[in-house]
């Protein structure tokens, strides 16, 4: 360390340290897996409950999923924050993207309920935005494709009246847009952790 550096050595130090810092990226797989499973379960529960009793208030499974997901996500985020040794601009941008999505989603739900409209298709379209952006920011193709899938499925849901088709489409979007990318992301994170 005490020897004077040559310009080549200086450049090597800079390049290797920047590459080292790039290794640390947001551990986002947990959230995709959690929300993917919860929202898929809420959709299936809504379909089944409406099938059994057409008068059922179909907002309840979504409320339960949202409440559970919110609590678990917050607890995980606090625990993760305690362990995190570095904060990158990428983590910050992804965090704000999802915060903006949650705020917009809540406003869409309030407006839709007030207008007696089903918020599902619009929220599905909206879900495409943060998913697509997260994929682009992380340069992770499965999430980019997942985002595009949410856009397509949301539009199709808007024009489909059949509850079974809507349920199948939504669950497919959750599986391919959240759960599969979440599992692939988890593998990538584990690979980096052990590198």
């Amino acid at each position, binding site marked *: *360390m005490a020897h004077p550096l040559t310009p080549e050595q200086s450049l090597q130090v800079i390049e290797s*340290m*920047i590459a080292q*810092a790039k290794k640390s990226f947001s551990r986002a797989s947990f959230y995709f897996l959690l929300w993917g499973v919860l929202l898929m379960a809420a959709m299936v529960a809504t379909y089944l409950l409406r099938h059994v009793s057409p008068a059922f208030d179909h907002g309840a499974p979504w409320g339960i999923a949202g409440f559970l997901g919110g609590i678990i996500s917050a607890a995980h985020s606090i625990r993760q924050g*305690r362990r995190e040794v570095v904060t*990158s601009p990428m983590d910050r941008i992804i965090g704000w993207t999802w915060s903006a999505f949650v705020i917009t989603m809540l406003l869409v739900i309030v407006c839709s309920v007030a207008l007696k409209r089903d918020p599902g298709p619009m929220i599905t379209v909206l879900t495409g935005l943060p998913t697509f952006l997260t994929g682009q920011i992380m340069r992770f193709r499965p999430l980019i494709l997942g985002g595009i899938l949410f856009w397509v499925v949301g539009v199709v849901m808007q024009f489909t009246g059949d509850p079974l088709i809507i349920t199948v489409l939504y669950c497919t979007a959750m599986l391919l847009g959240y759960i599969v990318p979440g599992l692939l992301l988890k593998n990538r994170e584990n690979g980096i952790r052990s590198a």
Partner: protein
Amino acid sequence: MGFAPLDPILHNQLRLAIVSLLVSVDEADFNFLLEGTGATRGNLSVQITKLKEAGYITVKKSFKANYPNTACTLSAKGLKAFEDYVEAIKGYLSA
């Protein structure tokens, strides 16, 4: 053509490594820098203090999960010095 002088604060392997790591992140704690640079705790601590005294980084000491935590951030002065250093190095390499 004369060569631009190299900043003596940055022209040290460990200090250059610390600043290079901080260029890519918003904030990094002591353990991240320790792992990234492969330095010893004592040496890293000394070089962090030198960078802090030069005004190249800011150091925030706090507690994280009941343990003392040192978080480092590159300052605007540090970023400018790093950019100037990289330009100077480019001059040497292209000569």
